[in-house]
């Protein structure tokens, strides 16, 4: 039997997720330029952390599971950073560059 989290915790997580969804939409209506997507992704990251920590009880699992989670995020970042790095340093993107 795996780690058991209380119903109350699940309830708070659920409400927090709904609140964050609402805030994402509201922020979207502000004219932040490229900032809108950036903030939206940031809030999404927050939601993902809530889902992972409480619904998936990631923090209660063994060390190796936490390593797998960290590893998958790190590997995704490797893919994005090095590829985007190429595009940014050749001025292929809409901002700055050559």
């Amino acid at each position, binding site marked *: 039997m795996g780690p058991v989290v209380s119903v109350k915790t699940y309830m708070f997580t659920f409400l927090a997720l709904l609140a964050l969804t609402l805030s994402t939409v509201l922020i979207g209506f502000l004219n932040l330029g490229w900032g809108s997507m950036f903030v939206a992704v940031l809030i999404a990251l927050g939601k993902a952390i809530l889902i992972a920590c409480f619904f998936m009880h990631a923090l209660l699992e063994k060390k190796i599971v936490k390593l797998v989670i960290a590893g998958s995020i790190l*590997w995704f970042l490797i893919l994005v950073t*090095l*590829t985007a*790095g190429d595009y940014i*340093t*050749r001025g*292929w993107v809409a901002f700055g560059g050559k």
Partner: protein
Amino acid sequence: MSTLVKIPAAETPNYLTEGRGIRSWLLTTDHKRIALLYLASVTVFFFIGGIFALLMRLELVTPASDLVSPHTYNELFSMHGIIMVWFFLIPSIPNTLGNFLIPMMIGAKDLAYPKINLASWYVFMLGGTITLYSMFRGGVDTGWTFYTPFSTIYSNTYVVGAALGIFVSGFASIMTGLNFIVTIHNMRAPGMTWFRLPLFIWSHYATSIIFVLATPVLAVTLLMVAVERIFQVGIFSSELGGDPVLFQHMFWFYSHPAVYIMVLPGMAVVSELVAAFSRKTIFGYTFVAFASVSIAVIGFLVWGHHMFVAGTSIYAAMYFSLLSYVVAVPSAIKVFNWTATVYKGSISWDTPMLYAIGFIGLFTIGGMTGLFLAALGIDVHVTDTYFVVAHFHYIMVGGTIMAFLGGIHYWWPKISGRMYPEGISKLSALTVFLGFNLTFFPQFVLGYLGMPRRYAAYPPEFQSLHVLSTAGATILGAGYLMPLIYLFWSWHYGPPAPPNPWRATGLEWQTSSPPPKQNFEITPVVTRKAYDYEGMKDELGLV
């Protein structure tokens, strides 16, 4: 030993005798039987890929594109690459020797998910069937690299079929990697701590990390190519403002780590062989273990070295070049440590050792030429020439295939319960070595002199080197046919093998040859470190 009397197998029940008939094989969940299913499949794929290679080499005997048209030649090298990479090299050692040995080496009854193991073989076969079907319906001519926009827009061949077949087989890779990681974490026998594991396990663990993290990216990339071909619109076409080079980034993010999937299991085998046939513990065990994991990790950071002339930024090129030098370090550490192991060891020159030493030499040449290619200035000159072709064949064929053959011979007594014939096996090892070098060394020269790869026609001044290479290829082919024949022969006619014919350390040698279905009569308890030849001197007997 040259009688033709069929020698009956051991009387004791083992994994081969428990359950007979085709159903017991096709529905088995025994990792040892699944290993044999894979062995049969990869052998068939190897010879199909080999036939494509032979046809290519025959065409290249003359400067003109006279044996086959350039279009057919494009299909030949594409199909040769696809079959060899995805249907032979990647599954070869992990799914045959890895499947068979990992549970045994850690003292377990089976892998963590035996049914997923069987499913992986069916998925692999489905992928292979789809790919072969595409090939024989009309082939694919994009190269195994499927570069856009040729693969997405301009090619008139069965790209979607081939890509789909590879996509499907990728799931088999992922299932295997997942199975191995979980098994090595959770199924070790009591006392088998991480640093008592054979280095074979460490290398396969590193390989499995790559399986799990790289293959999904290939899957989604090929999926996008298929989408673009089917819907005539996609993310790689410049018509919409897309960048064809993005395909290369995504493709090589997988395919560079994939070459480490191909070589790490070879290194896994070599560590075992070198220890056994020098009767010494591996020099610097911890360094070799961490080097395996480092190769897997750093291998994800270097993919841009396949794209130096593709139009990436100079800063990206410089970064990838630097990291490509860094990734060579752990490989070099392993070569130094194997050499130090052999030094002052009690060496026996059985066939597996011949293959292991061959691996060390040829892998070193292949690896060093990789460093030449990592230098931007040199790469501009030799990229897309036969220099590159020679480089990767030294590693894949001179390295991985030699290790595969060495491992098959070494563990053959355990797998089949029979000894292979030592005399002819040494002859074929020599044939392979000579054939290999005659085939591929001239290709370094050809590439340096400017012969491009993937060309059916070439200037006449290159002919003599091509003729040498083709001659070598025929010798190499003969060298590969020989084990196919004598290993088959030995299955029924070879002398029965004892549990530990090599007097080697390792849990797999502590059980009968062939092993019982559950591997061990009693779960072993481990108290010794790996390769404890000193400590086990009395137990193992005289050299």
